[in-house]
Each structure stands twice: as C-alpha cells, then as structure tokens.
C-alpha cells in the first residue's frame, strides 16, 4: 500500500516529520517497507522564465536563452532543446549543481563561442523519466525562483507499508491516519461527506436479483446518475498523486475512482450510462456467461460469481473488475456511479477462480466498511461535479448494510493479565474511541461496539491487542520466563535423544550429514519401490520434485553424482529424515540412511586405494545400530534386501525373522545406471522406528563386572565347507560348542581355490576360551576342541581341514 505524506496529512492534522510518521507506522503494526523521497538531489533546481530565446549565431540546432531564475541578474544559457522558446517556464540548474540524469556537475562553459551558464532541464536530466525530446515545459503561472520539486509535485515523499490481511481498513489512507491519531501522532480530521443534493431522478434503477440464500453476495448497493459530464484530463494535483503511488492517470472519472479506492478504501465503478440498457441488475452470473473486462481479457463466468448487468447482459464483475463495453471514455457524457458492498468470500473465490487480481478485489476480500457506501458516494459525486461538471441524481439505494455490529466486553484487567502492561482505564477508553469504537464503562468492564470498518475485531483478545498495540509494544515490560523447576528436565524423548546421538556417531565415522528435499522425481521414486498416487503432489514446484520420497537413498545418490561431477569423488553422506509410504501420519517413518561411493580408502603412500564394498555399509549399519542401543549380537543377517540393492551383495539385519532394523549392501548397478551415477555405491538404511524401545530401568547402575583372573586360551580351526555355506553358520556352531567357556569366535580367513575341491571353501576361525575358575588342562581343551569340530561339521556338513 503506497501513499504520500501529503495525502496522509490531508486526513491527519499533525506536525510530525516524515521520520516520526515512518517510525510510528511500524510501531502500530503498519510496517513500513520503503520510503521514496523523490525530491532527493533535486532540491536546488528552481523554476525559471525564459525571457528571450534567439538562434545561436553558429549552430542551427542551438538557441541562446536569457533565463530569469529569480537571481539578481538573468543568466545566458545555450540550449539544444527544440521546444526552448521565449516566454516559457522551465526548470533551471545553475552552474555548480549536479545533474542526476547525466551524472555531470555543471560548469560555466562556452558553446560554439557563446557563453552558457547553467542548464534548462529535461525529465531525463532530472532522473524522472526517459523523456528527452525537449526541456520541461511548466505552466505559465509557475512562480519563478521557487523550488521546482514543489511545483512539479515531487516534494511529497512516498511511503509504502505492508498491510496484514486483518487490516483491510488501512487499505485507505484515512484508515492509516486513524491509527496514527490513536497513537497520539496528531488528530484525525473530520470527514466532509455532506450530501450533494440530487437535482434529478436517476433514469436507471437498481435491482438486487438474488435468491434468499445468496442474497449476501451483494446485500447493499448505492448508485447515482450524473448527467452531462465532461470526462477530460484530471487536474495536476490528482495526476501527481496517482503518479506518485505508481498509478497511471487515465481520465478524470477513472482517476476519481482510484483516488476513492486508495484514499478512502472505497472502490467505486463508473458506468457509461448510455451503454447501459435499461436498469442495473446485480445477480449471480449464468454459467458460461462471458464478460470482456477492463483488462482486455474475456472471462467465462459461473453461477457462484456476482455480476452487475443491465437488462440484457453482464457489464461488470462485482467487486473485481468493470467491463470494457460500459467503461467510461473521453466521450462519455452521462454516467452511473456504483458504490456497493460485495461479500468478501465470494469475491475472493471469484478472483481466484478467474486468476484475476485488482485493487477492488484486494479490498473487498479483506472486507470494506459496509456503512461507508453513501458517504463514499457523496465524496465521489462532489469530486465528479468539481472536475467534470454535470447534474447529479438522487442516490439510488438498493438493499441495506449487512449486519456487522459486534458488542464486545473488555475486562480492564485483561490488558495486564493478557497484554502484560498496565494502562490506565481512561487511556484504554481514549485509544478505543479514537479507533472508532463506542465505549461505555461498567465498573471494571468496558462495554464496546466495534466500528463498521473493523470486521477483524471479534473478541476480547482483539480489544487487548488494539490497546497494547496503539500504546506501543515497547511499553510492555519483559518478564523473565523461568522454568518451573530449578533444573530443566530432559527436553528430548528417548527416541529423539538416541536419534541426536546416532547422528553425531555417523559423523564421527566420516559420514557427512546432508539435508535433502522430502520430494523427488517420480521416476527416481520408482527405482526405490515407488509411491502410491496419494503421494503425488497436485502442484509440484517442478516435475523433478513431484512425489514424496519413499527412501532417502535416491537424493543421497543423486547428490554424490553431482559432487563427482564437480570433482569431489568418494562422497560419504548420510541423512536423518522422513520417508513416506502413504499419506497418513502412520505411514511416515524416520530413517537414517547413508551412502559411500568410490574409494573407502584413497590411495596413499601407505597402500593402494580400496573401493567401498558392502561390508563398509554393514560396518556403518552395525556401529550405528549399536549406538542406538540395538541388541546387535542378536541380529540376524537375511539376504533378502530390497531390489535397489545388489542381489548378491546386500542383506537385512533383523531382530527375529520379521523385524528389519537395517538394510545394507551395494546399490544395484542398474539403479545407478538409470540415475546416471558412477559406482560403486554402497548404502545402508536404518529403520529407526523399528528399533526396540530400550527397557526403562529403575537404576542407572550397570551390571556387576567380573574380570577373570585366568589367562584365555586360543585355538585355531579351519573347516572345508561348501561355498554356499554362510560364515555365520560356522561361527554360530562353534560358539554353541560350549557357551560357558567359549568367550568369542573370530573368523580370520576364507578362501576358495588352491587345492580345494570345486564348490568348497575354507573357513578359518579362532576360538577363544575363557576359564573362570581354574586353569584348563590339556585334556579339557582337547575335549572342547573336539566338540567345536563336531558341531561345525554336523551343522555345515563340512570337515576339519587337515
């Protein structure tokens, strides 16, 4: 919302400076977004009278002008403008001034042998526009020697403020003035909305043609016929004002409607009455009905939209935009002015459906003052009469204002108990009254009636806000917000705490945390199991981000591809975040996923490079599961990882046969190829929500620790088993040989080939026996060793390698 300081002061009686106004606007909640003082740098330029302009003796295109600029003596200026002529008034810059449009500082000069002292300026030279066909040509009555910015209407700073959706009333300059007045920055000037007497009966009547259940679309309509207007150019003050706020002056009638819209938040429409057939009918559109609007576009309407029509067809879209056909032109002589109330919601819906924004829609959908239709009409008709002449009819009034009255009680104590600041009752009353409320005090309660223009005021909290806002939030003392207890409790749930910890554990393992979008291209989602249609965005930001992600991996893999392309290979990334399998809250789950690509160890003088492999991912998964408190020794490896993994080099870590805690392995080369990423890439995914909740224990004490005094004994074994025997089977069998004595079984070698039979492999293990009570005798050790061999052989069908 843009307006000028001068415009504001037309409504607000104040001595406040621009800076004071700007600060106060922000502090009452009308946030200033910018201030443009167009006079900056132009203050020294003055109005000058060209007392004589004669041909330059040596240059066809130059004139030698004698310029009176209000100084002691006239000066001589050589000027190249074609419109420089004797008797004109222009803008003069004397020697020594800086010309903003050219960046040059003027000096006394000699041009083709003739002295030139100063310059007559074009708009481009003043930095106002690109206009450079001639010098500025001002009205003959412009006073010589006075600042040009004043005469040109540039000395009025433009203020732009942001209006929050609740403050439709401040979409008019007068509403802004009211807020400032309430805050003590001057007084709101009284409104001059005295009736303009009607001299004739309107030949056009108004009919509100609605069914009962849609009558709220346009409950109230005020119209007025003006006969015999002259719709010429607006006067300079009006044009200056509109130009200052970025509007283009069109004609007096149109400019008056814009002035009413911005000044009073009262959008109006002026019909060319001679193009209206019969009466005005306000009604819902018939489906498929079309309207050529003032923006030159044809809109197809439906029966939820309000139109203003005549006896035959739609002439305007109520609250949104007028029609081209019945719009005013310079030849218009008879007009019908509309000042109506349109339902905010219907207006908003209409505009959205047609994708049509206008100053009128913007205001109607925020709610305009339903009691200002007649006043607005009087002010507008007075302007029309002043600027365009004509004879005015009586007002044609259809319908009545919608019910807007709201009585709200304010318990005075609520200013302190909700607003946190003590404000005297009299001041509360003063603030509300200046804002337009009627207030009656009843003991500790204020009985208030909200003004018609404040549809946002609905309850006591709103009144508290009005009072403390206008009084100033800076006057609310900050109160320490202290914890109820001396020491804070834990902010995190057990799950959140473990998730925060494992994130840092992942980073200590060399993985770099990434945060990627929750959406991705549908084609990539399909590579990772796909998503149901319910997870396809209706309005994606681009086709590359059109579905919710079913996995964290595609974004991470794509990221390492991008990093590789930038010359940063061997990425190790992880992310903790949501994946989606359906649209209900229960179908969103938290995953920790990581990938490593390229080399796990880069080549160095110590040794050659080693590519990442599935066991790097397995190590990550197990280390992080351990950090999360999962019972890692009890986890089983299943070789049934999802299809985006290498079918022979991947697995799932499960607790029991059904609960998958993690997956790991090489990413399927086919998936990488489709994503255009060079492998190898290994990945792991931890399904955080599948982890068992740690048991809540009564005590933080750890179990008793018994350190054995006796030295452990180690024995190595090598077994020949069929190549498809899982190593875990050998290890498990060995462990089971004596659960009390065998403390650990480690696998230290696997090989195939050599003199082994085809289809067989050798698995070498190291069994550690930990006696607890007495040293083992050789015979006892041999006995356990025999049991290990026997169990491994019977479980795997293999044999001890000899």
């Amino acid at each position, binding site marked *: 919302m843009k307006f000028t300081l001068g415009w504001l002061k037309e409504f607000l009686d104040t001595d406040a400076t621009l800076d004071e106004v700007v600060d106060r606007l922000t502090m009452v909640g009308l946030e200033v977004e910018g201030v443009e003082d167009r006079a900056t740098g132009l203050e020294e330029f003055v109005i000058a009278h060209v007392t004589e302009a004669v041909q330059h003796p040596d240059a066809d295109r130059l004139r030698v002008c004698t310029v009176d600029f209000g100084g002691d003596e006239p000066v001589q200026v050589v000027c190249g403008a074609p419109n420089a002529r004797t008797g004109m008034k222009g803008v003069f810059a004397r020697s020594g001034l800086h010309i903003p449009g050219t960046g040059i500082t003027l000096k006394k000069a000699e041009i083709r042998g003739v002295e030139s002292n100063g310059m007559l300026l074009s708009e481009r030279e003043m930095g106002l526009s690109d206009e450079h066909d001639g010098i500025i040509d001002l009205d003959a009555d412009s006073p010589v020697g006075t600042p040009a910015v004043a005469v040109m209407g540039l000395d009025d700073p433009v203020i732009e403020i942001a209006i929050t959706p609740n403050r439709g009333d401040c979409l008019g300059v007068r509403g802004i003035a009211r807020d400032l007045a309430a805050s003590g920055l001057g007084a709101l000037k009284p409104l001059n909305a005295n009736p303009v007497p009607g001299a004739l009966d309107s030949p056009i009547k108004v009919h509100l043609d609605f069914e009962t259940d849609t009558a709220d679309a346009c409950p109230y309509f005020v119209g007025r016929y003006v006969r015999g207007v002259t719709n010429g150019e607006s006067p300079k003050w009006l044009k200056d004002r509109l130009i200052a706020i970025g509007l283009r002056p069109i004609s007096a009638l149109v400019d008056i409607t814009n002035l009413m819209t911005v000044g009073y938040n009262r959008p109006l429409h002026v019909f060319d009455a001679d193009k209206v057939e019969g009466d005005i009918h306000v009604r819902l559109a018939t489906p498929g009905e079309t309207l050529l609007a003032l923006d030159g576009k044809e809109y197809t309407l439906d029966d939820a939209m309000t139109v203003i029509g005549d006896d035959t067809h739609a002439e305007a879209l109520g609250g949104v935009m007028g029609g081209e056909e019945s719009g005013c032109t310079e030849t218009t002589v008879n007009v019908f002015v509309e000042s109506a109330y349109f339902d905010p919601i219907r207006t908003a819906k209409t505009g959205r459906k047609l994708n049509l924004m206008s100053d009128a829609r913007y205001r109607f959908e925020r709610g305009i003052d339903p009691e200002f239709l007649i006043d607005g009409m009087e002010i507008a008709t007075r302007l029309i009469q002043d600027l365009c002449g004509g004879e005015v009819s009586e007002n044609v009034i259809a319908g009545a204002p919608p019910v807007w009255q709201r009585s709200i009680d304010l318990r005075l104590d609520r200013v302190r108990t909700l607003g946190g600041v003590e404000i005297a009752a009299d001041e509360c009353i003063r603030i509300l009254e200046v804002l337009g409320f009627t207030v009656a005090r009843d003991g500790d309660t204020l009985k208030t009636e909200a003004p018609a223009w404040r549809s946002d005021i609905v309850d006591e909290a709103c009144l508290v806000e009005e009072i403390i806002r206008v009084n100033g939030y800076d006057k609310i003392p900050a109160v320490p917000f202290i914890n109820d207890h001396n020491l804070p409790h834990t902010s995190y749930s057990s799950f959140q705490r473990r998730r925060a910890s494992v994130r840092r554990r992942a980073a200590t393992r060399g993985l770099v945390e990434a945060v990627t979008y929750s959406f991705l291209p549908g084609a990539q989602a399909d590579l990772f199991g796909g998503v149901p249609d319910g997870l396809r965005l209706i309005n994606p930001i681009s086709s590359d981000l059109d579905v919710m992600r079913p996995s964290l991996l595609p974004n991470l893999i794509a990221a390492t591809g991008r990093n590789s392309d930038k010359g*940063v290979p061997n990425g190790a990334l992880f992310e903790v975040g949501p994946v989606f399998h359906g649209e209900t809250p229960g179908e969103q789950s938290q995953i920790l996923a990581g990938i490593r690509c390229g080399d796990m160890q880069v080549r160095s003088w110590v040794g050659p490079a080693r590519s990442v492999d599935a066991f790097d991912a397995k190590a990550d998964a197990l280390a992080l599961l351990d950090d999360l408190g999962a019972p890692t020794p009890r986890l089983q490896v299943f070789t049934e990882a999802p299809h985006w993994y290498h079918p022979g080099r991947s697995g799932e870590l499960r607790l029991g046969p059904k609960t998958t805690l993690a997956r790991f392995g090489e990413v399927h080369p086919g998936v990488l190829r489709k994503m255009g990423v060079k492998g190898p890439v290994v990945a792991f995914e931890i399904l955080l929500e599948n982890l068992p909740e740690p048991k809540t224990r009564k005590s933080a004490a750890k179990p008793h620790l018994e350190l054995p005094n006796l030295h452990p004994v180690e024995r190595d074994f090598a077994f020949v088993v069929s190549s498809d025997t899982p190593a875990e089977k050998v290890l498990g069998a060995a462990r089971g040989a004596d659960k009390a004595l065998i403390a650990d079984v480690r696998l230290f070698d696997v090989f195939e080939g050599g003199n082994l039979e085809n289809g067989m492999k050798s698995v070498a293990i190291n069994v550690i026996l930990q006696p607890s009570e007495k040293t083992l005798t050789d015979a006892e050790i041999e006995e356990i060793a025999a049991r290990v061999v026997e169990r491994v052989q019977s479980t795997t069908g293999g044999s001890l390698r000899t």
Partner: protein
Amino acid sequence: MEDLDSLRSELMTSVEGAASIDDLEAIRVAEMGKKGRITAMMKGLGNLDPETRKAAGQNLNKLKSDVADALETRKSEMADSELDARLMDERMDMTLPPRPEEEGRIHPISQTIEEVVAILGEMGFSVIEGPDIEDDWHNFTALNIPPDHPARQEHDTFYLPGNGGDERLVLRTHTSPVQIRTMESGEPPFRIIVPGRTYRCDYDATHSPMFHQVEGLVVDRETHMGHLKGCLIEFCRAFFGVDDLPARFRPSYFPFTEPSAEMDIGCTREGGGLRIGHGDDWLEILGCGMVNPKVLENCGIDSSVYQGFAFGIGIERMAMLKYGIPDLRTFYESDLRWLRHYGFSPLNVPSMVGGLNQ
C-alpha cells in the same frame, strides 16, 4: 699372580677389541665355558694347599667376575649401539602425510535446531514432533485460518490428492499444526517446541520449497505478553551470543495469535556485511503472539481459564544470520565442499552449560 695379571690384561684387551656380540660369546665360552681356561684354572685349585688355594681362589673368582662384568658391559654397549644403528637405519620421512582419514560433519540445520533446543530446554520446553503431511483442519482451520481467509492464500500450499474427494491433504506450511495435535491429545499446561520440515510452493533466491521451523507453544493460566518478550529476548541473546542484543516487538497479524507480534533484533550493515548486535538497523527475526482463544477452543481447551504464547522461528534464517551463510538454496544441495565448510564437528554438541558457541 703374574699369570693372572697377564691373563686379566689379555682378556680385558680381547673383550675391549671384540667386534660383535658373537665375539664376546666366543670369549665367554673360551674362558668360562665348561672347557674354558678360567674354568680349568678353577678346577686346578683343588691341587693347591689350603693356604694358597684360598688366596688363589679369591683372585681367580675376582678375575672371573671382572671378566664377566666386562663382557656384560661390553655386550650392553654393543646392544645399544646395534639398536642405535638399527634405529638410524629405520629412519623414515616424518614429513610424509599420515594415513588419510576423514571425519564427517553435522549439517548446520541440525546444529541450529539443537542450539535452539539447548536454550529453550533450559526454560522447560519439551521437543514434540508431528507429521509432514497434514489435513486441512490441523494445518489451517483449527489455527483459525478458515478456507477463504486471505491468509490462506499467502501460504503457497502444496497439495496432495487425499482420498480423491474434496478433502485434499497438504504438506504442512508451518510447524503450527503440531500445536493443535498436542493440545487435542493432552491437558494443559503445555510448554513445547516443535522442530521440523515445512513446505511452501515457492522457489527463488530467498525461498525454498522446503525449509525448517521451530514452533514454540506455552499454555498455562498466567503467561502473558511480558513473558513472551522475556522468553524470546533471552532466547535471541543466547542464540546469537550477544548479552545486550537490542530487541523490539512490532504489532503484526497471524490468525492463530491475538495479540500478534513480530520481533526484530538490532543489527548493522556498516561496511557491507550484516552484523547482529548494536547498530542503526533492525532485522526481522520471528513471529509470535498470544495464542488466539479460538485456537484453544478448537482444541477443547477452556480459553477463559488458559492462555499462553506461541512463536515460530525459521531455522535456516537463524543459521544464515548466525553463521554468515549467504544463500538459502545451498542448504539442500548436499555439496560436500559446502557441507565441510559450514558443517559442524560431531563432538561440538550445543549446550548452555558446555557453551553454545564454541
């Protein structure tokens, strides 16, 4: 005796002249081994008369022990010099780089959220989370944003089809729906913060279709605007590490709070860069307000008894301001060079006691 003296001098010379531990061992065997000279002489003592034997025995023992000491000393000298020689031989170029290893990094978004939690946790807030895909009620209607409210248009909402009918689902446009979920399912008082992903259908230099917020909600019987100011001023001072950070509150509008405010903090743009702290300018930092009674009622909470405040903090914005990160969009690009530069060491865990700004 002369024999012994000359033998001593001979043996000492040969020990001195031995070139290796092997030579020394040879000397030992030759003199003191089973068939060694000194051994033989010891054996010969038995033939002497007792008087002579005692003196000769003492002398011989002395010789034997002196030679043994000399051998041992010489041996240890040799071992030392052999070790020295070997170590010199093992000399390596200590300017060689160590084995390559890399530590990971924590993303600035995670770090910033943990910082926020660390501060507000001290004030008794608990961390609550909620779903990213929301229904209309939780994201809008319950928060006092009815279907045709202009505020709803400003949210640039992403929609999902839902179950095909009128009830489309949305990607939550703010973390505020978790306020609703919390209040619907619990009993006041509440003191919660809600970090999480949020989504708006907007993408340019200063907007990302996904970003993060931390929502705060306090509901009890007496918390008012003064507490809101106290809480948020203290929060910003701790977060930015500026003890006397200027702060101001301006009236604003959010449908779910009444009164509503925006908070600005002091800053300066002198010298081109933005610096948080004392200065000639203000920077908008967050939105806040007293919970709108309608929102409380929508959640079944008696607004004549309970009140409180709510606020919303943009995590990326806070991180950008605190850590001088210039471009919002880079947060989600997963560029390893960026992550290593702006990311945090995993052991740099924010806490108020341990220090928030290490």
